[in-house]
């Protein structure tokens, strides 16, 4: 048998390092031993307990609502920004790019603390709106970058053709630009939703009494790690995996090819 190469060993170690904790979490979610000191036999009890825990349910609902709102707002910011960047002059473009990357590069804790102080200063009550605002600060930046990459592959020729055929600015956007951007819009939406769903730092600063799921888990773990926390984490993991596999399957078949042909069409048009 061939001796495994150094690269293979490193890859294996990295994978173990990445996935071992997740596997441990999932395993412990089924651990019958309450203190998690040792394996106490398999049980589904913790899942049912977590699912029936009103605190968990309300936190999950808060997270989902925040993530949905965050997705909608981020796209509403990112799509016009990406389209505008195409026509902007070099200086305006530099300002847009600068502020976009700034929102990603800036340490999250700094942005969160800043927003926290701002809301306190203006006496704005912490809660759902502030959570969403805090998330949108960075999620909209990621969405903008994804959409800008897609917009860069489009030429204005198709929009000109639409104008030539009688479509005004809004109709051109609805019938031509948006459909061509759709793959990037879907990818950006998924990314934003996940980022918002599992954000801890910003939520911790800005949630007030409205607790999101990651903040709840963080709070539960401060004293001791219970199997129930493991069950919640495992549940969220499975949910994320299912969502992503579904969307990947959808995207891979449809938008994967339409991305390629779209790029080809716009390349041919230049």
């Amino acid at each position, binding site marked *: 048998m061939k001796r495994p190469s150094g690269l293979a060993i490193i890859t294996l170690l990295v994978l173990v390092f990445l996935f071992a904790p997740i596997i441990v979490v999932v395993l412990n979610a089924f651990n019958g031993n309450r203190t998690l000191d040792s394996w106490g036999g398999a049980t589904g009890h913790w899942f049912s307990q977590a699912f029936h825990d009103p605190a968990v349910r309300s936190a999950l609902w808060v997270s989902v609502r925040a993530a949905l709102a965050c997705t909608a707002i981020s796209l509403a910011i990112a799509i016009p920004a990406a389209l505008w960047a195409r026509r902007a002059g070099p200086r305006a473009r530099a300002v847009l790019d600068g502020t976009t990357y700034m929102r990603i590069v800036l340490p999250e804790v700094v942005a969160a603390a800043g927003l926290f102080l701002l809301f306190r200063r203006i006496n704005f009550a912490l809660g759902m709106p502030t959570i969403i605002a805090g998330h949108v600060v960075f999620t909209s930046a990621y969405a903008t970058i994804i959409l800008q990459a897609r917009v860069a592959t489009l030429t204005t*020729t*198709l929009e*000109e*053709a*639409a*104008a*030539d*055929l*009688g*479509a*005004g600015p809004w*109709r051109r956007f609805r*019938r*031509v630009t948006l*459909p*061509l951007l759709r793959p990037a819009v879907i990818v950006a939406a998924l990314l934003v939703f996940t980022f918002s769903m599992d954000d801890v730092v910003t939520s911790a600063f800005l949630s007030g009494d409205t607790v999101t799921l990651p903040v709840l888990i963080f709070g539960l773990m401060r004293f001791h790690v219970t199997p129930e926390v493991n069950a919640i984490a495992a549940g969220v993991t499975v949910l994320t995996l299912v969502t992503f596999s579904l969307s990947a399957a959808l995207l891979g078949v449809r938008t994967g090819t*339409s991305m390629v*042909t*779209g790029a*080809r*069409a716009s390349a*041919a*048009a230049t």
Partner: protein
Amino acid sequence: MIPTAPHSMLEANDPPATDVPPAVRLDEVSCAFGTTLAVDNLNLDLATGEFFSLIGASGCGKSTTLRMIAGLQRPTQGRIIIAGRDVTDLSAEKREVNTVFQHYALFPHLNVFENVAFGLRERRVRGRDLDRRVGEMLEVVGLSDRGHARIRELSGGQQQRVALGRSLILEPSVLLLDEPLGALDLKLRRQMQLVLKQVQSRVGITFLYVTHDQEEAFAMSDRVGVMGGGVLAQVGTPQDIYRRPDSAFVADFVGASNRLAATVTGGGPGAYGLTLAADGRRLSAPGTPGLAAGAAASLILRPEALRLGDRVGDVLAGALVDVSFLGSQTVYTVAVEGCGQLTVADSRPDAPMPSAGDQVDVAFDGKDAWVVAE
């Protein structure tokens, strides 16, 4: 290729009346990009129902002119009048003109039917009326069975016909075509030229056709405009442009031409007296008006106006540099002392085949030549 299907535009089309305003009028139109003047003070009238071609090398301003008429480019100066109405300040979607774009610019996310239906949907045509009209247009462009096809499944020629149908279905007063056959191979180009010409004479819409291919323009057009450096150098019938060019630039652009330097000694446009610079011989030839005695001029000789191995008329002696047999004609390159290399074309099936290096005579008649200003 395109079946002669009945179409509503046929019945709607009346013969152009004499007092109608021009389909398109460009009134001192200029367009500058930064400091470059792409189009420089253009004046042009297109008659209703005519097939007009703008030809010129790339960058001569012909596409910019087209885009200004379409409303995709704002002129920096001048007015654009379509069917008597000043549309200079009107955006593209509000103009009664449609464009067939250079690379078709078909919508990749829509099928053939929806591409053709695009403009009608903007006009709120729906349901059965929409289906009927799109169906008729697909028949006109010979794509009845491809309505559900995706754009990327079509060949270049088919895409071209979708682009044509998408524009024609809106029954524009003027159809603008920007090098629509540029991406097709030669045989298909010839085919599509015929198709375009037939469609144009059938629907009676004014066509403004932009191309760098003068043969293509000649084959289809009622009139041709030659552009260079943003200026319209000459407008006329293909015969005018080819036989009676206004300038050496036009003569050079439309087809191969030989230019001999000469000096005008007198006479008028019907027959100028000339002295040939190469050997001082005197001859007489028609030419463009306005050449005064003493003016430096160019004698334009088309390759087919020259005869190899003939001694009738004016004869130039030279050495054969190259013989190219092209099938429909044989092309000779002859080096003549003081005149440079002349191109001679002979389309007779029994054209002589001398070998390179041979001493040959090249003969021409002054009346087949054309004089332009140097």
